[in-house]
């Protein structure tokens, strides 16, 4: 057998790459508010959560259910929400997605998108509700552009995560 083929046969993907790529992508998604974008209204989709949901949909069981807690802490510190809001919301969303995963095994693409859309709406509206409870009242209508943008960018994020999954499992 020729040498170039031998290098690729009977190999496992690098364990470091397998573990680190999903974590790194979620953290990178959470860090998008650090981009030099000064917005006067909430417009940027919650990319950290979207990447997390994508991994959860593509690879159920990649992480334990409690993984929303550490990712949520990071997102809160970077993103400007009061610390604890993403911890709470992401945990609830992940528990819900895991329960759905057990109950509805055979799902199609549109159902996955629907689950993600509902999760995004819950996360954004929940974040707003927490802010309103802590400070004062903002109308939900402020969030509509962000919600629509997030729901329609989700398929792109899912595609990107699927591509990264190939990179992750490359031998």
């Amino acid at each position, binding site marked *: 057998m020729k040498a170039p083929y031998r290098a690729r046969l009977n190999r496992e993907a690098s364990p470091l790459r397998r573990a680190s790529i999903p974590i790194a992508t979620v953290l990178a998604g959470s860090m998008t*508010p650090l981009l030099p974008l000064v*917005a006067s*209204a909430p417009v940027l989709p919650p990319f950290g959560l979207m990447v997390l949901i994508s991994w959860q949909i593509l690879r159920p069981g990649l992480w334990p259910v*409690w993984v929303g807690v550490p990712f949520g802490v990071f997102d809160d510190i970077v993103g400007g929400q009061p610390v604890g809001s993403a911890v709470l919301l992401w945990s609830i969303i*992940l*528990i819900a997605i895991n329960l759905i995963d057990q109950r509805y095994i*055979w799902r199609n693409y549109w159902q996955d998108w629907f689950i993600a859309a509902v999760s995004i709406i819950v996360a954004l509206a929940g*974040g707003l509700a927490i802010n309103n409870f802590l*400070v004062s009242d903002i109308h939900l209508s402020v969030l509509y552009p962000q919600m629509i943008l997030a729901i329609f960018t989700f398929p792109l994020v899912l595609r990107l995560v699927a591509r990264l999954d190939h990179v992750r499992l490359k031998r």
Partner: protein
Amino acid sequence: MAPPRNRRPGFSRKAQLQIFTGYLLAFTGAFAGLLLLALSYFDPAAFSAVRSMTAEVTAPPARLLTGIRVSTQSGWREVSAYFEAGSKNAKLQREVERNRVRMIEARALRQENRELRRLLGLIKQEGRPVATARLINSSASSSRRYATIDVGSRQGVQRSQPVRAQRGLVGRVLETGPNTSRVLLLSDTENVVPVRRARDGVVAFSQGRGDGRVDIKLIDIGVNPFKVGDVMVTSGNGGIYPPNVPVAIIERLTSDGAIGKLLANPAGTDFVIVQEMYEPELVAPEPSELPPVSSMPAAPLPAAPSQPVPAIGAPQP
């Protein structure tokens, strides 16, 4: 989609327990989130150290990216300016003629204003600039409106100093790190600024709406005096914000005031200036029965700026 591999982990008690523990930890985590929120509620500055540390670490690349963005924008502006050079030149020249007359008027008014202030014994303390900075990023995905600037306590920035751009007020400093600070933008709902109408001084206050606009709320409830296009400036009441900084232009009327568009759009400003906190100071009017303390009626205060001299019958800041 194929069913997940670990949906039911056989009869292994250990694997089953692991899944159960995962759910238990997730629920505990959600509860811990609630506790953290309670902590943020009772002590809003609880996590400011961690936040400013993150900002410090991420500031250098953000600053670099901001530099690239700004230079690209200004380069494009310069290129596009060539296309309308002729007509723009003629228009600008007409404007210069008009403005020259207005400037002479304004100079006279300023002189008169100074005289009147001296008569009143009111010393106007201009907010001296502390530092010039760039807005490097903002909480673009949250419903709160914060921005980060690339100067901090090492450059002399302190809490609750006003931040303004050339066109108008931007916000105030909320937390400072060594080289970065967090700014509460005007459009945040927590940011309330006392304002007045530039034309005649109708007093109101502005409160952010979270979407880049502000609610202008009247203090006197009565007939709504606002008209679309009125410019609101800070009144300087209550300190922090110096007077006469442009804030917003009225866009739409509501039942109890108006909705204003911010004049200094944070997205469109290159540089912002951090100013010293404004502390209105009043000179006590000289009592007539006592011999005059000094001959200058409007001498600057000898006392420390943090302790305003209490004036008799004068409104307290």
